[in-house]
């Protein structure tokens, strides 16, 4: 089809495009390579099924916004098909008379597919353009007081426009070109759309039709050549950086858990991340994978209650900072600008409850929460800059072994009147029951500890507690960024575990569960740890206890982030609730299980106040009240405290109660 001159020009343009792409992609990967903790690129080969599943299956798009996700899937499939189409079109241009399996059923099917998908993609992208530029979906905007750099604000609009126009024109001209080909060579029953359009050109001079077909070919493929080197600057890079991100992401035991720091290593000069290059390479890659859809922002409890934090703003700011400084940064220059100035304000970093919702919903596998946790480490350990109340919590943990700051000799007061076995007397037991600080010092926490131990007694569990020998696991210290204090607390507990040869632990609190199970494993101490809801649910299944269905009104269950998203347990507490319902039902809140909404206390937020915006727990309690259930069941001490506060403030004291699942089970056992 193409003339010799056209062919030469095309080959020159291909060389130019690929050359420029080589340079730009090189800069992108060099920028990623500046991060700490090298990416294990070999993993990409091992994890190819994961990448392919994300790329072709589009499976990560449906946790939230299923409709938009569906439209995206059609556009993505169409676009993927177009990779083959472009190659075939080049052959068509270069080899005279080339037709891809022209009369074979495969070629017919191919043409039919391309014809239909072209229309789908055009409609889908038009919808996306409409949504961003005309109807201006607020979900695509980031509200004050979140820091979003000027280059990000203007760059995002420009890039979205370029990407939208690129797809529309690339696919559009390919489609129009096909219609000109039909106008020139006669109708094709396997391209109904293009056939229809070809009717428009019926009266055109054949020479014009040939010219028009050439122009369309050039525009469709020329746009690709122009776009390839632009990829590293565009969010559209997500189409391969997203799947790649899933293939090379760090293997985590739990979403908020990462490697410990060796404080004996005197070569380490930087603890945590202050500047971009301090982040692990996989976290810099996140910026290139981000498509700026704001799903994480919709989910974030801090953002939705009006605080300074938006997880998507982290990635967007990071990306535009990289775009702006790509030459210098990829060349290894020290830009000497702390991330708190351009990526995430300090208050925003403290606003994170580490609920993990942002990580859960991200369709490209980003972990903005990890950036926050690493930045906190720098602020705490290098700068000594953090909320005043957090310092109070640190001092209390250090001095008294618990963030409440109460006497370490008063950990056994919840046991009064019960016959709770103690490790120091019993010396050996099948399971250690870990009440935790809340279970020992908070009044409601004590009720729950008592409920759990009474259930254990009824089931004949061989257990014991450490009592006054227990000390804080260090959860809050670690999430706030005080790795040093965390390790101090952990070492004390690990010594006790070794002293008594403890292997199996049942924790009352999901935060203790995560810390003992995953964070301690990072320190080299592997323990078999389960949550009380899991352990008690097993007791029911094994027939060791048989709670009587006694609850006659509806119950709603508030998922604890550290039990659900952080440990994947959604069923055990629900099954326990089901076991004690007689006439009432288990009714779900809108946001539940993987999309459960935080109570506001995680990530150390239990110990300090962020005064910007609304209270997260009030928002969540209102959602619970909307279910019309009369009992809000919880499985976490922090959640229990936050929900009870929500109950009081929203004026539901008369008609609703907040109870731990263990308390509900015990009620079902009370007459035995």
């Amino acid at each position: 089809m193409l003339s010799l001159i056209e062919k030469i020009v095309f080959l020159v343009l291909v060389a130019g495009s690929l050359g420029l792409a080589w340079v730009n992609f090189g800069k992108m990967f060099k920028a990623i390579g500046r991060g700490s903790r090298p990416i294990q690129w070999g993993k990409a080969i091992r994890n190819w099924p994961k990448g392919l599943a994300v790329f072709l299956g589009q499976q990560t798009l449906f946790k939230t916004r299923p409709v938009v996700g569906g439209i995206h899937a059609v556009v993505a499939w169409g676009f993927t098909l177009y990779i083959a189409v472009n190659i075939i079109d080049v052959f068509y241009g270069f080899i005279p008379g080339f037709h891809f399996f022209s009369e074979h059923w495969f070629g017919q099917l191919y043409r039919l597919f391309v014809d239909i998908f072209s229309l789908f993609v055009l409609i889908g992208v038009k919808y996306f353009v409409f949504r961003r530029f005309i109807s201006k979906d607020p979900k695509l905007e980031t509200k004050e007081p979140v820091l979003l750099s000027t280059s990000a604000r203007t760059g995002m609009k420009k890039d979205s426009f370029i990407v939208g126009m690129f797809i529309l024109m690339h696919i559009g001209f390919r489609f129009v070109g096909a219609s000109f080909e039909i106008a020139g060579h006669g109708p094709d029953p396997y391209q109904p759309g293009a056939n229809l359009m070809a009717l428009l050109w019926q009266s055109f001079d054949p020479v014009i039709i040939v010219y028009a077909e050439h122009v369309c070919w050039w525009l469709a493929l020329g746009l690709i050549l122009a776009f390839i080197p632009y990829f590293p600057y565009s969010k559209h890079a997500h189409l391969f950086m997203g799947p790649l991100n899933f293939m090379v992401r760090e293997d985590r035991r739990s979403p908020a858990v990462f490697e410990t720091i060796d404080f004996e290593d005197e070569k380490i000069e930087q603890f945590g991340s202050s500047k971009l290059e301090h982040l692990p390479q996989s976290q810099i890659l996140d910026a290139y994978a981000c498509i700026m859809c704001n799903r994480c922002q919709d989910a974030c409890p801090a953002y939705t209650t009006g605080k300074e934090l938006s997880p998507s703003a982290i990635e967007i700011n990071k990306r535009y900072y990289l775009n702006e400084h790509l030459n210098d940064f990829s060349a290894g220059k020290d830009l000497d600008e702390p991330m708190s100035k351009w990526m995430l304000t300090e208050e925003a970093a403290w606003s994170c409850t580490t609920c993990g919702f942002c990580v859960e919903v991200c369709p490209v596998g980003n972990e903005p929460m990890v950036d926050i946790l690493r930045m906190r480490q720098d602020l705490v350990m290098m700068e000594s800059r953090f909320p005043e109340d957090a310092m109070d919590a640190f001092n209390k943990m250090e001095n008294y072994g618990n963030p409440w700051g109460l006497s370490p000799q008063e950990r056994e007061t919840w046991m009064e009147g019960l016959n709770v076995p103690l490790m120091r007397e019993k010396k050996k037991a099948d399971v250690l029951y870990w009440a935790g600080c809340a279970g020992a010092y908070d009044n409601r926490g004590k009720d729950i500890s008592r409920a759990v131990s009474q259930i254990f007694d009824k089931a004949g569990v061989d257990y014991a507690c450490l009592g006054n020998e227990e000390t804080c696991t260090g959860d809050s210290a670690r999430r706030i960024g005080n790795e040093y204090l965390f390790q101090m607390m952990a070492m004390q507990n690990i010594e006790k575990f070794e002293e008594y040869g403890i292997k199996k632990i049942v924790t009352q609190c999901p935060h203790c569960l995560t810390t003992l199970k995953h964070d301690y494993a990072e320190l080299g101490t592997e323990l078999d740890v389960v949550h009380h809801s899991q352990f008690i649910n097993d007791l029911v299944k094994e027939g060791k206890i048989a709670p009587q269905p006694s609850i006659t009104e509806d119950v709603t269950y508030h998922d604890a982030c550290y039990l659900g998203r952080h440990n994947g347990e959604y069923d055990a507490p629900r099954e326990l609730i089901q076991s004690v319902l007689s006439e009432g039902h288990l009714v779900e809140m809108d946001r539940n299980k993987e999309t459960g909404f935080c109570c506001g206390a995680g990530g150390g937020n239990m110990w300090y106040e962020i005064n910007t915006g609304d209270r997260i727990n009030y928002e969540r309690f209102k959602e619970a009240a909307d279910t019309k259930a009369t009992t809000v069941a919880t499985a976490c001490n922090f959640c229990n405290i936050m929900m009870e506060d929500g109950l009081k403030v929203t004026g539901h004291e008369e008609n609703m109660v907040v109870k731990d699942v263990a308390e509900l089970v015990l009620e079902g056992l009370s007459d035995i």
Partner: protein
Amino acid sequence: MKIAVLIKQVPGAESALPINSEAIGVQEDQVSFLMNESDSYALEEAQKIIEAQGSGEVVAISLGPDRVQKIIREALAKGADRGIHLQSEASGLVDPLTLAKQFAKVLESEHFDLIFSGLQSDDSGMGQTGIILGELLNMATASLVVETELGENSLKVKRELEAGWFQWVTLTLPASISIQSGLNQPRYPSLRGIMGAKKKELKIVPESDFIVDGEKQSIRKVFVPKTDKRTEMIDGEPDAVVARLVEILKNDVKVL
């Protein structure tokens, strides 16, 4: 500029305080010890003055058994330049004159420009050691300081008086002052500080180097005050009620 800060390790406010078998103190292994609150403000104030000066040193000094080295290390982690530990097996309940004499023996040769101490210790609460030490070393002294301003060879301090009154006093250096809690925000040590503290000098002075004449006081008995709550309703004719009330005030409450 050389500033000494006297820091004391005391039982934390929330600590359990079981009385020991001799009933002259607390059972130390059950107690959570920490830096006396007002001392940590004194330390912060000293550091701020030296930081503003740009040169000089802050020396954290504590007297007691080896456990007190924990708070000296804590002070070093927060930024004190060196530490001195006056090793003594005496508990925290030595009289302030004896303590001041002991400190004076060790600190005399150091020629400090300023000595800061917390207003009073959270355990025995005598509130005199720093002031007596100042007198023994021939320094100007001021207590209850809530603000400091360093001048040329002088220190201007704001003192808290009774009934909401304050007083500004200018002391010629050298001076020893006792500091009230709340005048600044004590810092949290950075990790660099914690790591660096391990390499800083901590001089240990054995008790034989600061022997002084016999103590002026001794503890006879430590006990938890008995709390007793009784309610007696007095009914009857006014004369009988008054008679009964007088009897109670005379014989039970013993105020008449």
